């Protein structure tokens, strides 16, 4: 009876109106995930269209500068559309086509998932509508135009805190109104079953590649993996292949905003408690009455009050560590990687870079550290300039 559980977390806490829709998604996914033709078509898209496999790059200057572990960057920023989001989107939109859907909808925070969804929809001839919090359409204006250019309609969500959480609310409401012809391309390892499983599976290509590439380059497994965590899709994509390798440390970096001792934070594991929301049992930032807290991060993509249920379980069983990284640290990480390696990371990924700067020097020179560079930072340049007191607007 209990489906999609990760320890106590997960489940399907959604309105009855959506139940047959998620059951249908699960049925089709189970049918096609091992269908050779589907697999071949997806692989072809990932390789020829999205540019996979992505590079595993040895960051030599950063390694030398930090003076500890040997640092590799998994370059998901080099994928088509500029982030890891395309991995999941190509899989889901392909599945939606098999399901006979003609329209896809999606939430987006920073706009990376929205851009990826709009891209896949353009490629596969589907109608596309994207829901994005008003605060995010303001701070990521360029991505809004990008999505429109790709043929999508972007809805600016003005309810609640006007950020990612509210974009998810609105997309769920829209799906409730129109399940017949519409698939909800959920962008992270969250929401009701089967989404945490499907998104993880489509993203797990990241970790599979890292394992293969690391064995080729170093002849052994890495000692630690670092990724940023909002809902947690790039982290789960990297971690999943290594869960059964107990000597590989898995480290998720949460957005601490101004700090975990302030109320301007989005660090769910550090400050949240178990709750049930957005279709899943997991950790959420909330008050004593279960009202979801308004969260904050400089990064629109990590500005979410919950976390995927599989991460919640990895946290409970101690398999993965989750650490908070502040706005200041992330911005410094953003600037550091730009200067040191000539790679401008997404402000989301910069949270992982920031923690690596702390961790690497504590490790020995023969240890291997992989940072998931989940996205590129072009979209953040103007915002970071403003953070530093500049007057640049897109």
């Amino acid at each position, binding site marked *: 009876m209990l489906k999609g559980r990760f320890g106590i977390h997960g489940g399907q806490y959604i309105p009855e109106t959506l139940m047959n829709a998620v059951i249908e998604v699960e049925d089709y996914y189970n049918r096609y995930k091992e269908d050779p033709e589907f697999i071949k078509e997806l692989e072809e898209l990932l390789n020829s269209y999205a540019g996979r496999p992505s590079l595993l790059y040895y960051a030599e200057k950063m390694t030398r500068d930090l003076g500890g572990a040997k640092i590799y960057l998994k370059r998901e920023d080099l994928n088509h559309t500029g982030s890891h989001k395309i991995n999941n989107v190509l899989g889901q939109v392909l599945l939606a086509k098999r399901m006979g859907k003609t329209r896809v909808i999606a939430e987006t925070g920073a706009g990376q998932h929205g851009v990826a969804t709009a891209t896949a929809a353009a490629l596969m001839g589907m109608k596309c509508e994207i829901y994005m919090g008003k605060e995010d359409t303001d701070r990521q204006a360029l991505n809004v135009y990008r999505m429109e250019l790709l043929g999508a309609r972007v809805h600016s969500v003005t309810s609640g805190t006007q950020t990612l959480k509210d974009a998810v609310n609105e997309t769920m409401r829209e799906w409730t109104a129109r*399940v017949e012809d519409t698939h909800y391309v959920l962008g992270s390892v969250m929401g009701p079953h089967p989404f945490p499983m499907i998104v993880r599976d489509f993203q797990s290509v990241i970790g599979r590649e890292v394992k293969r590439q690391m064995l080729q380059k170093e002849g052994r497994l890495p000692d630690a993996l670092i990724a940023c965590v909002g809902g947690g899709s790039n982290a789960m994509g990297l971690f999943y292949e290594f869960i059964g390798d107990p000597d590989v440390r898995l480290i998720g970096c949460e957005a601490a905003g101004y700090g975990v001792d302030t109320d301007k934070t989005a660090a769910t594991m550090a400050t949240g408690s178990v709750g049930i929301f957005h279709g899943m049992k997991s950790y959420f930032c909330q008050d004593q009455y279960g009202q979801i807290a308004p969260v904050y991060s400089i990064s629109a993509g990590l500005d979410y009050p919950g976390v995927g249920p599989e991460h919640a379980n990895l946290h409970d069983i101690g398999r993965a560590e989750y650490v908070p990284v502040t706005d200041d640290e992330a911005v410094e990480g953003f600037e550091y990687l730009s200067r040191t390696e000539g790679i401008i990371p997404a402000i989301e990924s910069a949270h992982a870079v920031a923690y690596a700067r702390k961790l690497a020097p504590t490790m020995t020179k023969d240890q291997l550290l992989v940072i998931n560079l989940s996205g590129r930072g072009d979209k953040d340049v103007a915002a970071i300039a403003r953070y530093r007191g500049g007057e640049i607007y897109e």
Partner: protein
Amino acid sequence: MNKVQKAFANGKAFIPFITAGDPSLEITEELVIRMAEEGADLIELGIPFSDPIAEGLVIQRADERALAGGATTDKIFDMVKRIRQVCSVPLAFMTYMNPIFTYGTERFMKNCRESGIDAIIVPDVPFEEKDELMPYCSNYSVELISLIAPTSQHRIRQIASEAQGFVYCVSSMGVTGVRQEISSDVEEMVKLVKQVKDIPCAIGFGISTPEQAAKMVQFSDGAIVGSAIVKIVEQYGVDCVPYVADYVRRMKKAVKQGV
């Protein structure tokens, strides 16, 4: 016969919904008492939630007003106790799983029992997850109301067979809110439920006019109205009580006698 069954014992039922604490808990208390006097057969009280994903804009705004006004689950329980000193109308809470879970599901149901709540409606807990609530509901004799939707199809049989109190038939796709047209499929939904179980069926989502309500009860046991009432509360604020009372009177008449 329990209180929920009694709500359907005098012919067709009229079931209004209001959000507790909108515009204040004092007004909510007055509204419940007045709506009961005007013939409401069962009253749904919404415990406001920060992120009500099954609600349209009207009730979303009511939740925001109630939370901004300081309504909390504890204060709402206290209000229910005050209402119960003067009013015995069957009462159901409508809220989301997180406010219940975080409050402590057992403590929540115990307080429902002690304050006088007869049933709960939780739109983000489908059949598959009802064990989250059912054991506690049973322990404290709070009825867990099941919802069925136009998309439920073959699930109706499964849901109806384990339903208690009444079945909440969601008339339309999408979220709560006033609608011009209500799909005729809902009549089929009610028939399917009745084939499985002899249990009252009330129809909600989209109903606002006496004509719509009268039509819905031709093939069901009750009409549920939320957004149309919450709109009156929004329009008149602290002065809303007589306007809501008048509306409930007209709706109740339509449900009992037709229009």
